[in-house]
């Protein structure tokens, strides 16, 4: 389902990446590929294993099985090589209480191998960030800006962002989205773990959905939408034909008087053909909204009912 392979080495490649904490399996055999230059969304409910995946990518934790490569460098065995390509923004940036914002930016930028002060100043201005305050005095949103500015200002090949907009106001979130778009335009790769669907929809080229430590879906948003069931409602002029339920890809048929409702899981050709001889008063085919799409993936039991199909 990957969108074509390129000759260049993958920005991120995981094979059977697994992490267990005692009896708990936090991540179970994750295999994904993130190509250079794409914006890759990483979605999943709380506890799905998103942060665990990121910690494994960063070499902060070692995999129980499988492995991850960042620009060809093994994330655990060759962290130095991997870190040379990336910058990371955690979900909750923890600032040194006694250091001022500007000092923290300088520190992170310097150990990363240098940065352009002009870029830093421009980012501070765009994020409306005051670098003269001590770490302990920043609000949650402002602490988060330190992490974002530090990551964007060093212009890394790969940005690993773990729910980076936590605590940002909507205006700052717009700024963040523009920064992501500019980064992509410069050819940087972005790995964005997020809860916020609109954010993912706005910036991501491809999306992976994680649930309970397992990958349930990868694709463009359009791909994902097409995979989902559509809700069809037909009102017949007479009584509805009895044989609709046997058509391929149709589920949950519900008949009320002359109205039939069902879920359609594939293209509607067969249904249209079957309907052709009948007189129809109204036909309504509804696409699932993004929210419904994700709720169905996030739900407790993805296999039954309207959950995702394994196909």
């Amino acid at each position, binding site marked *: 389902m990957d969108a074509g392979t390129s000759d260049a080495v993958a920005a991120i490649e995981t094979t059977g990446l697994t992490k267990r904490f005692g009896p708990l399996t936090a991540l179970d055999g994750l295999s994904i590929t993130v190509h250079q230059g794409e914006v890759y969304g990483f979605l999943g409910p709380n506890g799905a294993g998103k942060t665990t995946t990121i*910690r494994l990518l*960063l*070499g*902060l*934790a*070692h995999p129980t099985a499988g492995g991850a490569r960042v620009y060809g460098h093994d994330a655990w065995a060759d*962290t*130095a090589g991997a*870190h*040379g390509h*990336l*910058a*990371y923004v*955690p979900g*909750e*940036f*923890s*600032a*040194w*209480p*006694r*250091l*001022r914002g*500007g*000092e923290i930016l*300088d*520190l*992170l930028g*310097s*150990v*990363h*191998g240098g940065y352009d002060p002009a870029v830093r100043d421009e980012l501070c201005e765009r994020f409306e960030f005051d*670098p*003269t*305050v*001590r770490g*302990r005095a920043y609000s949650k949103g402002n602490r988060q800006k330190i*992490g974002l500015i*530090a990551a964007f200002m*060093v212009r890394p090949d790969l940005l*690993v962002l773990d729910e980076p907009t936590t605590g940002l106001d909507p205006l700052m979130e717009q700024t963040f989205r523009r920064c992501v778009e500019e980064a992509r335009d410069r050819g940087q790769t972005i790995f964005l773990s997020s809860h916020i669907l609109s954010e993912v929809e706005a910036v991501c080229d491809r999306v992976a959905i994680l649930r309970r430590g397992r990958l349930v879906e990868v694709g463009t948003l359009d791909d994902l939408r097409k995979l989902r069931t559509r809700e069809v409602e037909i009102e017949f002029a007479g009584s509805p034909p009895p044989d609709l339920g046997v058509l391929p890809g149709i589920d949950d048929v519900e008949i009320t008087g002359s109205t039939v409702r069902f879920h359609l899981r594939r293209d509607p050709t067969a249904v249209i053909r079957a309907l052709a001889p009948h007189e129809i008063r109204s036909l309504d085919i509804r696409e699932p909204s993004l929210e419904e799409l994700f709720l169905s993936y996030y739900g407790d039991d993805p296999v039954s009912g309207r959950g995702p199909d394994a196909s």
Partner: protein
Amino acid sequence: MSPFRLSWRLLWRGAAIWSGILGVIVMIGVRAYNELYPTEAARQLAVTEFSNIRALSALYGRPVGLDTPGGFIVWRYGAFAGVVAGLWGLMAVSRVLRGDEEVGRTELVLSGDVGATRLLLTQLGAFGLGVAVIAAGTLLGCLASGLRLGGSALFSISIAGDALVFGMIAALTSQLFDARRRAAGWAGATLGVAYLLRALGDGAPERSWVSWLSPIGWTGRISAFTDPSLAPIALIASVTAVLLGGCVVLMHRRDIGAGLIGARTRAGVHLRRVRSPLALDWLLARGAAIAWAVGVIVYGYVLGFLAADMIDYLRNDKNLLDMFSRIGGNSIVTVKGFLGLTFTIVGIVLAVYAGSMVSAARTEEAEGRVEGLVTSGVGRGRWLGARVLVGGGGVVALALVGAFGAWVGTVSNGSSVGLGETLLGGLNAVPVALVFGGLSLLAFGLLPRTTAFVAYGAVAVAYVIQMIGALAGAPSWVTDLSPFAHVAAVPAVPVNVTATVVMLAVAAALGLGGLIAFRRRDITAE
């Protein structure tokens, strides 16, 4: 969970542990006293001799009723137990009040139907219960040793008094400052000043009023077993009440999460250059290092100054000589010997410092500040290495300034001792401190959540084994278990090269093991 139980959960372990330690110390002390001074005549001799040593009065307190085991225990361990109880009290209260507020738990509770005043009283109520636990240990220790009930109860109350007063001072500083460390730090500074004032007052009868300026001095005046006085207890109760009232008033004058002091103005800030892990660690460690340096200089100076006085009296007393030689060998009866003993205690202080540096590294990790550096290309080895360098450098620097303070003190009281040999004596305390630093690093690498526990617990256990073991007449293989037992009393005797090399090797091996384990484990935040 109710606010009371929430606070109690944070308190009870420390209270139970220190309660037990204090009780055991009392029991061992009474046993040692009965062994050393079995007869009435021996006890009278002890009275006359101890009572005349000003330096001992400054160290321990006014010698009252030394002819009874109870009086001896109050004199010998009262101030120490008071300091321990006071330290526990201020750590516990700053943790329950300011610590909870810092992490936002207080906000949660207050958003329920609990009012601010009631919450404060509930939290302090839990602390009060902890104080009772601390006192109970001393009481049980006294009673188990066969001391009188009345005196035992008063002695326990005096220990409780120190815990209470310094706990309430911490309650006040928790209103003033917006960070737990600063609240505890300022309350701790008060405790240090209180100890010094008591030492000044008790050390010289002509200025004994000075000890009335110190809460530790008050509890020292209760003289639980001989001719007890209740006035200090009334004083403690009133001061506690005043501090409590002050806390309630101050609390209503500030925002939740903020302090009354600490909102510094931002005008004219200049940003420092912090561009490497080493620069960062030095910046983080600097404030604490200066405070430690002041502490060891004062300690060295005071003991150096007292050295000559002590020696004069010790030389004349066979009994005392015997007792002290069990701790430090015969060379103790010289100024250099006394300095040597002083430096072995500096070794304990430095071991605590080394542990605190490693423990702070764990705090950095637990609060999620290591990830940003490590993923920016610092590398785990370089990050921890910088910290080891700053911590190790701090140990060496503290040893040197402590020794320098001791030299100045000794010389200013008319004794002659070389600067070089005194500094060597200070440096001789470094390897043992590094052993404990290495042990803390190993804990940090293998079981990071236990770092602080191992760092401080190991020093406490080793200290108790060595000091108490020697007094109680334990076999030498027991006392030899403590690394502190292998620190030679330089400058009285030459450096024990074998022990030094072994300790440095052990420290390096432990530290290296910790580093390797750290590089192999997951980085965990809390």
